[in-house]
């Protein structure tokens, strides 16, 4: 069981310290009480002692690094011990905890440090009750209000069921736009810490030594920055701490660059001087106010046209891009702040509308057999599952199969290259009281239909309750949006960036159709596929939709 070595906080005003010198190196054996390193606060240089005996397994920061207080800076334990994916900055006042790792790398007994960015990492998120009123959520800050304390302890995300989940019956999980509507709406919504569609969590995160240097509202739109921790006023500085080398900081100050907007290329995402210089060189000219407004609103300056002196981007230009009005609200109507999920949706939708080259293909399919299949599946599985399999479950299975067969649609744009993704994760757009959320059924192509159905219900229920896990609302490779329950036939969905395509599902309704030369009443369904023409051409997209149509018309082909 490895022990964390924490950078202590000396007094309430201390936010960070500089590691002046390591007195040990990795592999050294230490006794409890041995000096491990010297650090400098704004007041003094002090030694930190080993909290336990053992071998120094890992030093997470280099000498000279600026580290937020209560961060894990090193691990002590026994050789060969597994270490958590990354250190956690701790909430002030909380005593260091030892974390037990489950085989999958999930923490089963951890606590969430308050200054932890939500949704930053996929695996290894702690579950269970959150120890402190978490005032870190986006909602609070966007509205400029002091973040209201959450009822504490609040269940955060659902992983650790049974541990700290509120007692009482869970509302029965129901997919939104399937037939399952009306089965008991879930309970009170709750501001969710989850990003709407974060990306970059889950897989392949470097187990870097640094807490994520993710920009709060930086340029990283589309990359799906994790919803940033929203500090309460008192905690702003600490929570917003950015990891950058001293030279990077100096360069940033010189060039008037906001470090929050930079993605670091150094170890663990640390910002180095070269990052700052490259960023500064690539920056369009903008007024100081425009920069601040853009940084906060998450609006990229790169593509804005400037209307100010010398072509500078002004606040008005930023506001125009953001679709906001700079003037304070006028009388009349009700001003609803663009906050939380709404702001996130606005940002994502605008980014999609702006950045993709969307084309929508529509086709009318015969869903008679799908209706039959669903009826029979319902009869066969409802006793075992405790709920009815719905159309969305079937559609997820169908799309997952089609995506597996048409990898061009299971892709995303990464800079100058198109990445064909190995895994198929299908999201379903869900209307919640907080707004549109897209829980993602991971590895949908590998799941049995019943597994898809069960997973989806759990995901939807948690999304509705604001208890989605950090990687439950992101990482999708394709999205389904079903408006059939509202009597919509066909529509033009907006691509859920950074995905390549989205399937809009209309209502299934009996309509006249020609079957074998005869007029017959059939269950008909419109499918609308919007794809990003930057990534894929019309013909392959059409073939993909054709395959989906085929699987809808003849669902038994899923068995093949």
């Amino acid at each position, binding site marked *: 069981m490895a022990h964390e070595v924490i950078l202590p906080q000396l007094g309430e005003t201390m936010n960070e310290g500089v590691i002046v010198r390591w007195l040990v190196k990795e592999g050294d054996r230490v006794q409890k009480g041995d000096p491990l390193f010297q650090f400098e606060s704004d007041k003094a240089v002090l030694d930190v002692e080993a909290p336990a005996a053992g071998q120094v397994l890992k030093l997470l920061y280099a000498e000279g690094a600026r580290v937020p207080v209560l961060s894990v800076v090193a691990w002590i334990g026994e050789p060969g011990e597994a270490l958590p994916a990354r250190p956690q900055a701790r909430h002030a006042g909380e005593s260091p905890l030892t974390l037990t790792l489950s085989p999958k790398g999930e923490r089963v007994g951890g606590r969430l440090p308050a200054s932890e960015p939500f949704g930053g990492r996929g695996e290894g998120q702690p579950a269970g009750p959150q120890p402190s009123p978490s005032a870190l959520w986006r909602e609070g800050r966007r509205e400029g209000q002091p973040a209201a304390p959450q009822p504490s302890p609040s269940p955060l995300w659902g992983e650790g069921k049974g541990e700290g989940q509120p007692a009482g019956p869970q509302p029965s999980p129901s997919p939104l736009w399937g037939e399952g509507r009306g089965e008991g709406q879930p309970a009170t919504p709750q501001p969710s810490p989850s990003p709407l569609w974060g990306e970059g969590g889950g897989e392949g995160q470097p187990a870097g030594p640094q807490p994520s240097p993710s920009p709060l509202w930086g340029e990283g739109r589309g990359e799906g920055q994790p919803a940033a921790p929203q500090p309460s006023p008192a905690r702003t500085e600490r929570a917003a701490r950015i990891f950058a080398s001293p030279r990077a900081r100096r360069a940033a100050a010189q060039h008037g660059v906001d470090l929050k907007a930079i993605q670091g290329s150094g170890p663990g995402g640390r910002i180095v001087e070269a990052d700052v210089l490259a960023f500064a060189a690539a920056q369009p000219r903008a007024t100081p106010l425009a920069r601040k407004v853009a940084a*906060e609103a998450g609006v990229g300056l790169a593509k804005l046209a400037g209307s100010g002196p010398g072509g500078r981007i002004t606040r008005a230009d930023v506001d125009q891009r953001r679709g906001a009005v700079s003037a*304070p609200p006028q009388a009349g109507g009700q001003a609803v702040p663009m906050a939380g999920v709404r702001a996130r949706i606005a940002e994502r939708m605008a980014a999609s509308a702006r950045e993709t080259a969307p084309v929508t293909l529509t086709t009318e399919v015969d869903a008679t057999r799908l209706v039959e299949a669903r009826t029979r599946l319902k009869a066969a599985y409802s006793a075992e599952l405790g709920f009815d399999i719905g159309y969305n479950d079937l559609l997820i299975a169908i799309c997952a199969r089609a995506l597996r067969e048409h990898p061009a649609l299971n892709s995303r744009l990464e800079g100058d290259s198109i990445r064909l993704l190995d895994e198929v994760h299908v999201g379903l757009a869900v209307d919640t009281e907080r707004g549109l959320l897209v829980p993602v059924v991971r590895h949908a192509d590998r799941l049995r239909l019943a597994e898809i159905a069960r997973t989806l219900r759990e995901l939807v229920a948690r999304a509705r309750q604001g208890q989605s896990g950090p990687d439950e609302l992101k990482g999708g490779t394709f999205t389904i949006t079903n408006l059939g329950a509202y009597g919509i036939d066909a529509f033009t969905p907006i691509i859920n960036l950074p995905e390549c395509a989205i399937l809009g599902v209309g209502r299934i309704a009996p309509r006249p159709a020609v079957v074998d030369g005869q007029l017959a009443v059939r269950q008909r369904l419109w499918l609308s596929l919007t794809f990003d023409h930057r990534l894929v051409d019309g013909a392959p997209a059409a073939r993909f939709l054709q395959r989906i149509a085929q699987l809808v018309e003849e669902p038994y082909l899923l068995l093949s």
Partner: protein
Amino acid sequence: MPTDLIVIGGGPAGYVAALRAAQLGAHVALIEAGRLGGVCLNEGCIPTKALLAGAEVYRLVAEAARFGVRAGPPEADWPAMQARKAEVVGKLVGGVRMLLERAGVEVIAGHARFSGPQSLAVEGPGGVQTLAAPHVIVATGSSPLRLPIPGADLPGVLDSSAALDLPALPQSLLVVGGGAVGLELATLFAGLGVRVTLVEMLPRLAPLADADVGDALRTALLLQGVKVHVNTRIAAIEPAADGLRARLEGPQGELSVEAEKVLLAAGRQPNVAGLGLEAAGVRFGRQGIAVDERMATSAGYILAAGDVVGGSMLAHVAMHQGRVAAESALGRPARMRYEAVPSCIFTQPEAASVGLTEQAAREQGYDVRVGRFPFNGNGKAIAQGQVDGFVKVVAEARYGAVLGVHIVGPHASDLILEGALGLTLEATLDEFAATIHPHPTLGEAVAEAALAALGRPLHLPA
């Protein structure tokens, strides 16, 4: 050579429009009925400043002992001041003429009038000629507003132009109107020993300025011996034994003030009459000609600039509008922005503002932060013995965007430039505070006010 552009009016808007158009290669004709330079040069800003310079010297001599200089009591030589004023004006008007000539602008003396949508009849000393050009810029300026009160046409009732041309200093003067013109002329005459009473209809002097500015100016005038009546309107002017008597209605009821002269400084009105604007299809009203941000009128090929479009009626705005109008007329992208228009009042001390007042910022719903620094905490101000006044920075809390800067004090009209540049470039408090201000200068007060708005002034007692 065909004319590309006709400019009607040779004031700040017109001559700048002509110069800019010529600079862009256009062949420009400029029609002026009176003297080049307009009201600003001939009977407004410049003559006032020339005379105020005399009043300033007068004041300095009177206060010489304070600086350790022995001098006799000063004596105002008004005719000599007038002569100097004429010299200053002549020099500047000659300068404008020279600039226009060098730029190749054809200056035509006469009154212009639209005779149809595309043609102008110019009535000059040599008869009437017809001119036509693809574009016309109307820059005919404004005239003093005549108040419709009984006795307004009595001899001894003056407008600002007449007041500046008085052959002799009056014993006493009643100034009606507490805006920039009234305040400046009250300052001028009071500074030369004239007994001055000032009447303002609204509760504050300089009603368009930040409330603190109006209050400070009222104090400054009182210290110069000016009697100030606010919330007071003038009901009538009558002849009296030693000049005129004005009947006033104020919060305490009626009162009457006797003065040798009465100055009506109650604003100006755009010169829109007699231009044949109707014939040209140009929409206008009493507030002036309606223009868009390119300074184009409802008749697209006709543009307008300066006081004739109404609004703030400031010479520097007129010049900027003239430039925009010229560029628009010649197909350049240009638009007029009004977010950072400075305005100055040349009182003693001066007052200057740019951007939103604190009151306006609050009304617009901003979370307002105000930083203030008094000149009696500024080394340069103390050293030069001018410590009255302050710098006030109005900002919003979220981004620290500077919304307005308001200054009362020595050289306020020069100091406001920092605010104007800051607002134009959308600077925030951080940039104001981060800019190194030379020491010892009055401008340090601007930086301190910005620091105060950030909650960390260095030179204010905690």
